[in-house]
């Protein structure tokens, strides 16, 4: 209860921070939205030119991609700033100010850096998903339940990944390239899994389960989910646990920069 109160106070602060620079906020949201509208355009372009992802029609692929946007939207609202903020604190030697608060440092950084602009990304994803779903039609109630379950699992992967990247920045100070590695791996989640070679399929289901971010929940919604999708729930949970563990471990290793 205490933590919910703190979280809402921090999110309110994040909103006032975002509102402090009006033009910046509007531009930021606009660019986020634009870059997410442009991405599905590539898919539309592919299908408009007669090419296709075998076994998947255009609206089905768009559904996968919009679920992917919803998922990344939520995870970046919650966690995307953790990487940058941690990095800044470590480089500037100001992590003590976080440790002075009588709450979990990870929770405090998460709460006080709620990323308001990502709401646009999430909403854009929702709108696109609804449009796509109207064209494809969705399965029954059980399919929706499976969708929700897999969607949450996808969030766990994204959150775990963000935390791991933030944890790495404790030791690998100032490496702004870290997030790019994950961005390129997670791209696999944006496309139908069946188009990839077997090795990539295994990688993106069991080792770094990025398929759970967009592909699995979307195919569940279509009633096309494969039993092996649920197998990847295990690595999803492991990912989050590993992320939290690593971050907290790094805090303990943290040394002040001096001054």
């Amino acid at each position, binding site marked *: 209860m205490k933590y919910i109160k703190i979280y809402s*106070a921090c999110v309110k602060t994040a909103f006032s921070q975002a509102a*402090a620079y009006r033009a910046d906020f509007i531009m930021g949201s606009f660019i986020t939205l634009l870059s997410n509208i442009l991405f599905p355009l590539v898919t539309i372009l592919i299908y408009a030119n007669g090419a296709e992802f075998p076994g998947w029609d255009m609206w089905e692929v768009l559904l996968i991609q919009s679920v992917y946007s919803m998922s990344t939207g939520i995870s970046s609202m919650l966690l995307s700033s953790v990487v940058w903020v941690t990095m800044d604190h470590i480089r500037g030697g100001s992590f*003590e100010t976080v440790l002075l608060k009588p709450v979990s440092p990870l929770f405090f950084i998460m709460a006080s850096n709620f990323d308001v602009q990502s709401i646009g990304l999430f909403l854009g994803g929702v709108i696109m998903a609804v449009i796509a779903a109207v064209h494809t039609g969705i399965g029954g109630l059980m399919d929706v339940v499976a969708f929700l379950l897999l969607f949450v699992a996808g969030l766990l992967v994204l959150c775990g990944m963000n935390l791991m990247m933030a944890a790495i920045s404790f030791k690998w100070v100032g490496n702004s390239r870290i997030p790019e590695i994950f961005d390129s791996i997670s791209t696999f989640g944006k496309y139908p899994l069946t188009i990839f070679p077997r090795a990539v399929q295994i990688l993106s289901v069991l080792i770094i389960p990025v398929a759970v971010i967009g592909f699995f929940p979307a195919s569940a919604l279509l009633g096309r989910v494969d039993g092996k999708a649920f197998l990847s729930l295990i690595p999803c949970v492991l990912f989050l646990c590993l992320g939290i563990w690593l971050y907290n471990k790094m805090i303990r290793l943290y040394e002040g920069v001096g001054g």
Partner: protein
Amino acid sequence: MAIITVEDLVKSYKTYKRGSGFKETMKSFVKREEVEIKAVDHISFQIEKGSICGILGPNGAGKSTTIKMLCGALYPTSGKIDVMGFSPAKDRMKYVHQIGAVFGQKSQLIWDIPPVDSFAMNKAIYGIPDADYKKRLSEMAELFDIGEVMHKPTRVLSLGERMKCEFVMAMLHNPEIVFLDEPTIGLDVIAKAKIREVVSEMNRNGTTFILTTHDLEDVEQLAREVIVINHGKKVFDDNLQNLKSALGNKKIVNLSLAKPFKGEKVGDALVIPGSNDHEISLEVDLDKQNIRDFLDSLGGVLDFKDISIKELPMETIITRIYSE
């Protein structure tokens, strides 16, 4: 009663020796030499409840590291810290509820929004009840005279205004102990005076203060107990009176001369040669001579263009304490 007990505290870092210049940088890129640095080296002390204790020392002496360990932000390498029965780093979450801290060089306010919004966030984090919060905020706003200032975005505030708000931020939850790390660094005389005044006032109401500084004036006007640290070791730990008597009551008079002066003494004051023939400093012993009498006599002896009067510099104090 001791509110803080520190026994045999050590903090050491492992770091890598990095070369400067291209050749050495390349060399250290391939093979790095590990170096152990002892930032704090077997320090012990006690601080009484209700006191104001100054931790003095030159830059890089280990003051900040010590205060970070006292705040629970750093684990000691070895040794024991007991603050109000807590072991700061181990019981950190419970412990930091009881303390406040102001780091002169690291802001806790949120840059883009008014301080009062940052205060509201702290209210939630520390779970301060509404009535207490309102009462305390209005008291402190009045003490620091920031009634208007705290409604402007932090980024437009002057350093002095911001520091006052940092103090309020750190003390809203009514902590028993407040740690101040270089609280007056970079501030002008008026802002310094205001902050010292409020610290004294809060101390009269029972708050214990621990401050690190290399500004001797902070210590003279606030502290009763003084600990001097150099190279990670404690070199002095006693009350202010004894520090003064150990050093003697001295002032430094800096002069820019019209004509060079060669001589060892001016009156009773010792001459310290400066960077060139036209710059000298005089060390005046105030126990032997009134500063006003000294200045009166000075015009007759020396032909100077400019004059300034300062406290003994930190480095001199450290060397003096060593040679004791």
